[in-house]
C-alpha cells in the first residue's frame, strides 16, 4: 500500500461566517438556516434493490452517515428532507414514488442512487422506469451499479452543498413552481 496523499480536493468546513463584536455576534439568517438544514438532513430511504444494500452499509458504523447529522432515518415523508431513491423503480412503483415525494414538506431534496434510479440501468425493458427524473425532479445523481458507500457519501456531500447555497425564498419562487408544474406536481403557495 502506498502512502495516501491529501490532495487539494479535500475541503475543510469552516462553518458559517460571522462578525464578532463585544458581546454580540452577527451573521446572515440565510446562511445560518442553510447551515442548520445542511447539518441535519433527515433522509427518507426509498431502497428497492442492491443499491439499498449499499445504502444500508452507508448508514452502518463503518461509513457512518450519522456523522453528517443524518442519524435519524425518516420513514414518513412528513419529517424528511432528503429522498434517497436507491434501486430499480418499475413503472408500477412510479406513482407511489411520486406520491411519497409530493407528501414531503418543503424544502426537500432528492438523491438518485445507482444506475437504475438514474437511467433504468441494465433494465431497458417495458416495465422499468428509465430514470426517476421522468416523474420527480432529482438534485444529485450518484452513478454506479451499485455505487460504493463512498460514492453515496459523495452524493450526500453534494446535497449538502446545494442545501448550503439555497436561498430561503427559493421554494416560494415562480421558478420552483414552474419546475413542479413541469412534473405535474400541484403546489399552492
Amino acid at each position, binding site marked *: 500500500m502506498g502512502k495516501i496523499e491529501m490532495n487539494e480536493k479535500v475541503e475543510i468546513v469552516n462553518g458559517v461566517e460571522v462578525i464578532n463584536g463585544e458581546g454580540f455576534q452577527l451573521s446572515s*439568517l440565510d446562511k445560518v*438556516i442553510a447551515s442548520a438544514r445542511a447539518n441535519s438532513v433527515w433522509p427518507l430511504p426509498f431502497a428497492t434493490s442492491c443499491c439499498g444494500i449499499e445504502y444500508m452499509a452507508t448508514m452502518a458504523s463503518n461509513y457512518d452517515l450519522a456523522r453528517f447529522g443524518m442519524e435519524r432515518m425518516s420513514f*414518513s*415523508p*412528513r419529517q424528511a428532507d432528503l429522498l434517497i431513491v436507491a434501486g430499480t423503480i418499475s413503472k408500477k412503483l412510479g*406513482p*407511489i*414514488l411520486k*406520491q*411519497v415525494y*409530493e*407528501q414531503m*414538506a*418543503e*424544502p426537500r431534496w432528492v438523491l438518485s442512487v445507482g444506475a437504475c434510479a438514474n437511467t433504468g440501468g441494465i433494465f431497458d425493458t417495458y416495465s422499468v422506469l428509465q430514470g426517476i427524473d421522468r416523474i420527480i425532479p432529482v438534485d444529485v445523481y450518484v452513478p454506479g451499479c451499485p455505487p460504493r458507500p463512498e460514492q453515496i457519501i459523495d452524493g450526500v456531500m453534494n446535497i449538502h452543498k446545494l442545501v448550503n447555497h439555497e436561498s*430561503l425564498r*427559493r*421554494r*416560494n419562487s415562480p421558478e420552483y413552481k414552474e419546475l413542479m408544474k413541469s412534473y405535474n*406536481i*400541484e*403546489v*399552492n*403557495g
Partner: protein
Amino acid sequence: MTNSTVEDYIPLVLQAIVALGFVVGTLIITHILGPKLRSKKKNSTWECGIEMEGDARFPVSIRYFMTAILFVLFDVEVIFFYPYAVNFKALQLDGLWAVLMFVSFFLIGFLYVYKKGALEWEK
C-alpha cells in the same frame, strides 16, 4: 440552615421563562421562516405512497369480535385447569367442589352466550 426569601427564586423563574420561550419561539419562528406549499396530495393521509381509500371510521361486523373475545374467556378457563390437575390429589374433595363451582359459573355463561346466538357465524 439559611433563610431563603421569595426573591431568591427569581433566577429559577427566569430560567423557566427562557426555557419555555425558546421552545415556543422556535416553533413560531420555524413556521414563519419555513416555506409552506400545499397541495391536495400533500395534505392527504400518508399511506406509504398509495392513494387513500375510504374512511378509517366505518362499522365492522361484531361477529369476529364476539367469537374472539369468547375464545379468550374460555381459553383462560382452561388455563386454570392446569394447576388443578397438578394438585388434584392434594386438594381432595374440597378442590373438586371449588372447581365444579367455577366450571358451572362458566357453563351458565356459556349457555347464556349460546342462547343469545353470539356464536352463530351466519345469521
